[in-house]
């Protein structure tokens, strides 16, 4: 009985499969570790890889009102803001993807992207 596939057929099929898998790998392997993004009026002024942060890192934005941001290993927060309600400070420590602290008057956004929170919704209505 004639075989459906010869040895060389199988080689090619395997080769195609291997190349396909290699090409698909980047789609399933996301960025690892949380990265905090700090933007002022839509422009990213700083990106901090929180997993690589050693000790405490702190800086103050040159905005009106000014906002002080503190990062430690695995987390970041707005530690002080030169405004009355301090809503962004009340957001507390940000640790996982989608966590966000916003200062509306200063147009400062601190948010975390790129960690692997599998069950988080794509977007939230509020």
């Amino acid at each position, binding site marked *: 009985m004639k075989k459906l596939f010869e040895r060389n057929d199988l080689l090619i099929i395997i080769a*195609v499969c291997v190349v396909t898998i290699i090409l698909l790998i980047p789609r399933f392997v996301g960025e690892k570790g949380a990265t905090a993004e700090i933007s002022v009026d839509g422009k990213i002024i700083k990106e901090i890889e929180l997993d690589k942060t050693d000790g405490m890192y702190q800086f103050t934005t040159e905005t009106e009102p000014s906002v002080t941001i503190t990062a430690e290993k695995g987390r970041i927060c707005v530690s002080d803001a030169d405004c009355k309600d301090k809503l962004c400070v009340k957001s507390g420590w940000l640790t996982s993807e989608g966590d966000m602290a916003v200062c509306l008057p200063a147009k400062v956004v601190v948010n975390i992207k790129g960690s692997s929170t599998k069950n988080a919704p794509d977007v939230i209505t509020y």
Partner: protein
Amino acid sequence: MEKAHFFGASKKWLALILCGVIILGIIAADFFINREKSEKTYVAMGTVITSKIQGKGSAEAEEEIRTMINGMETACLSWRCEGSDVYRINEHNGTFESVSQDTAKWIADCVDVSEKSSGAFDITIGKVTKLWNFDGESSNVPSSKEIEKALQAVDYSKMLFNSTAVKIAKGQFIDLGAVGKGIACDSAREILENSGVKSATVSVGGSVLVFGKSATVGVICPDDDTKCVGTINLKDKCVSTSGDYERFFEKDGKKYHHILDPYTGYPVENNLRSVTVICDSGLLSDALSTACFVLGYKGSLGLLNNYDAEAIYIFDDNTIAVTDGVKSFKLTDNSYKMK
């Protein structure tokens, strides 16, 4: 019978190689097209905008959406921005004021919701909203006399408009704040459609557009803005939520939230915590979520039917009701129960 050789040209070989090339081509094209994506969060229109766009041209589309939102506020929507359409309509109350065709259309759509909701949604509520000043840093409960006076200016049926001009009655004041975010979602969709990107989610201060492919939308928990009570899968829809937790202040132990009843001039008091509306238009989902909150659960079901819209209601006893068309709602918070 012809035997297959590695470099031979048997049909079987040709077919196999062709298959391989086609598969690789599709995967490579898909990978390189979809690799392009843009995720941005920024402040505009006095709120937080988050856009996640995937596909070729995503960065350009994101930039265009941002420019559109900034321009829309200053040119059309904000009653605070001198020279905007809404500013001029208010300033020249009692006379017809020329506006952009977009503004005229948005106002016509708002008035349509006002008519179908018997005034539960009414953009002429501006004077009452200003009185309560929920956007300000300190808020006080206005006196009943002040509210009564401001209420006299609330009546959508006194507005006149055509496709290029709008007139409000003498002494009236319109505020499109309740629909501004939804309008931004609608305009974002137009940009995305023309840009040819594959998919996107855009949140304008919690009013959401899902474009191109299915996305999971979380409905926020009224008591904890870090949690969602549940999720829903949607594609090519707009979603808006009105809740008593968004903007409020407390005075003498009583909570006063920003969803005002156009009939009384006071914050709506019923058994609702929030209403989330899903429909094709952002302006409508915004307007309907406000109207449904004012009308209450049973009173608002007919209104939703008028617009082919669906809704998720969260009540103050931690129960949730959904309309018949909400098939994919998944409860994720155990402290809530479905009705």
